[in-house]
């Protein structure tokens, strides 16, 4: 009992996930658990889970990210544009990585060195990247069929596992991860204890960029096309995933890799499962929104200082 009480905050997001799975599972009369649908869920969760884990490193140190969708979109668009004009699908991955790394290096440097709040920096980057995407795009880009080779489940699962394990180790079992979370907990204390804040923050941005670049590459392989709206709205999806997973957006020592994973699972199971239940399309968002608030009510960890949360 003591153990359960002690780990309640850790267990609650899992309970939220189980609750959602059970509700949707019953409402969909078991369709949720069919093998083909589980395959769909895996397919649909792939991008969002990587992006959410990536951004959890930024949120962990108290950052904020409104640029993830636009950077993801620009990585795909620039990569698609270069493939279309120069050929060679193999360059897709390096270009996706290069674009996202450059974007987040700039974001990190500007945020840290010029001391601009990350909300503003990432909003600027969002404007810049979205503008660049629409400027480059002169229509939907159809990619050569060979890029679809990367849409291979064995490869995708291996890559996903490597990324998640690496993220877990980095977040929870390295000095960098602990320092990153310590900055989110209390930047002044972190600075006083000798943590090189700017270096750690930039490293977090770069690690996030690495994951975002990889996610963009696999999204290209999945769709074999690039559109102007690629990645639009992921900023919000990421926030939703992180919050539903039980991680505070302000970051801190309680930040974890499992939060975005659980949150992403809840988001995707909800959007996938509600279609299976045959609910009126006009009510889908209503139900998702309601469940979202209900899960937050149950899982959100509140401070007992009597102040309203910010």
């Amino acid at each position, binding site marked *: 009992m003591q153990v359960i009480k002690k780990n309640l905050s850790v267990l609650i997001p899992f309970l939220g996930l189980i609750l959602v799975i059970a509700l949707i599972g019953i409402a969909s009369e078991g369709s949720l658990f069919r093998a083909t649908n589980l395959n769909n869920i895996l397919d649909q969760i792939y991008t969002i889970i990587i992006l959410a884990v990536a951004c959890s490193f930024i949120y962990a140190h108290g950052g904020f990210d409104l640029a993830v969708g636009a950077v993801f979109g620009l990585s795909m668009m620039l990569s698609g544009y270069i493939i279309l004009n120069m050929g060679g699908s193999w360059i897709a991955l390096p270009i996706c990585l290069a674009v996202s790394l450059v974007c987040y290096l700039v974001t990190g440097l500007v945020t840290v060195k010029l001391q601009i709040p990350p909300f503003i920096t990432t909003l600027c980057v969002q404007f810049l990247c979205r503008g660049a995407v629409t400027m480059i795009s002169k229509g939907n880009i159809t990619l050569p069929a060979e890029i679809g080779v990367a849409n291979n489940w064995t490869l995708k699962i291996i890559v996903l596992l490597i990324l998640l394990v690496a993220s877990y180790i980095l977040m929870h079992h390295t000095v960098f991860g602990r320092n990153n979370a310590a900055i989110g907990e209390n930047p002044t204390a972190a600075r006083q204890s000798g943590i090189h804040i700017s270096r750690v923050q930039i490293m977090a941005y770069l690690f996030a960029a690495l994951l975002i670049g990889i996610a963009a590459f696999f999204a290209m392989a999945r*769709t074999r096309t690039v559109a102007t709206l690629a990645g639009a709205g992921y900023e919000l999806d990421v926030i939703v995933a992180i919050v539903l997973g039980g991680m505070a957006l302000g970051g801190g020592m309680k930040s974890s890799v499992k939060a975005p994973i659980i949150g992403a699972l809840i988001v995707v199971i909800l959007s*996938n499962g509600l*279609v299976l239940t045959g609910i009126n399309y006009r009510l889908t968002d209503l139900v998702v929104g309601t469940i979202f608030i209900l899960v937050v009510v149950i899982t959100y960890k509140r401070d007992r200082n009597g102040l309203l949360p910010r």
Partner: protein
Amino acid sequence: MKKKLVAIILVLALSLGLTACAGGSTTPEKVELPQYKVGVILYNLSNDWALNIMKSIEYLGSNLNVTFDYAVGGTDPEQTITAAQNFGAAGIDGIINLHPGMIMPTLIEICEQYEMYIVTSNDPANAHPEYGTFSKSKFFAGEVWEDDFAMAYTIAEDMIKTHGAKTFALTGFPFGLADQMDKRLNGAKKAIEDNGATLLAEGLSFDKASAAANIVSQYPDIDAIFSSVESISTVYQPLVNAGLGDKVLLNCYDPGEGALEAMEEGVVNYAVEGTLADSMIAFVLLYNAMSGNRMTDADGNAASIEMEYVLAKSHEDFVNIQKYITGDSAPFTIDELKPFIKVLNKDAKLEGLTEFAQGFSLESVMARHGG
């Protein structure tokens, strides 16, 4: 805990209230036909374009024991693929996909996996490099489309030749959102170039209303504004506010209720309609495929039917469009389409359907429906 309960009750009360507001879905008329469920993918579920399409196919569905489910997609490939996968898992029999974009091979793969059929409407998939392969798939029911490039070219050329327009601005969504809209913009650009007119500004933005307001304010002497989408909610009001309603030529695609007034005032000079008609023909192709009677050409390729848009250049034309096409009566009645549905008419042929669909015009609808 008490507070949590209050919160839960609050949210649930709001949700239940809204659920009650949503009303019931359309109940299909019971006829001796197999039951099918069709998923429809549209880029927007709530504008006039979408509502007209929904109304037309639901009319057919109610007579053929078909129910519908809708999902957002069409402009974001990831979203479209997700919608198709979810439809597949939900046991849907067929998909009507508006704006196929360039992801048809992936969508066909999903359809093959779930053994569901797909038809594309509004825009063709035949420009795809792999079209030759996937058009033979037994799950590809076909495509019905209009030539958007040609219609846009016609409008812009008419603005120049008939009304003497010399300077132009473009407005609408940016390129890369939907091929259909890109073709319209390219068609207008080509007409402007071919006829020696000048393109002064491209106000293509997700915030279409602000872009349109800027065009009107920065270029008050402009002769014509070509819109690749519905323009009543974007260009109309800035033109009226600036007192330029009767001075600047303007077109509108898939016009809603407000277009009637706009055409009467002379603010909108061209209104293009017809997307709902091609969706009805697409539905027929899909229905045939779902009932095991896929319509193909002699080589086994899926049907590819090009239809004509209806272009209104006067208020009177538009009144007729609203009366006979987008209003209470659909452009095709179920009785007119039954001869092309194989389970109801064994002699139904693709050639016949194609000929019937290609004969679609305002005049033909009025003649058929007693106008």
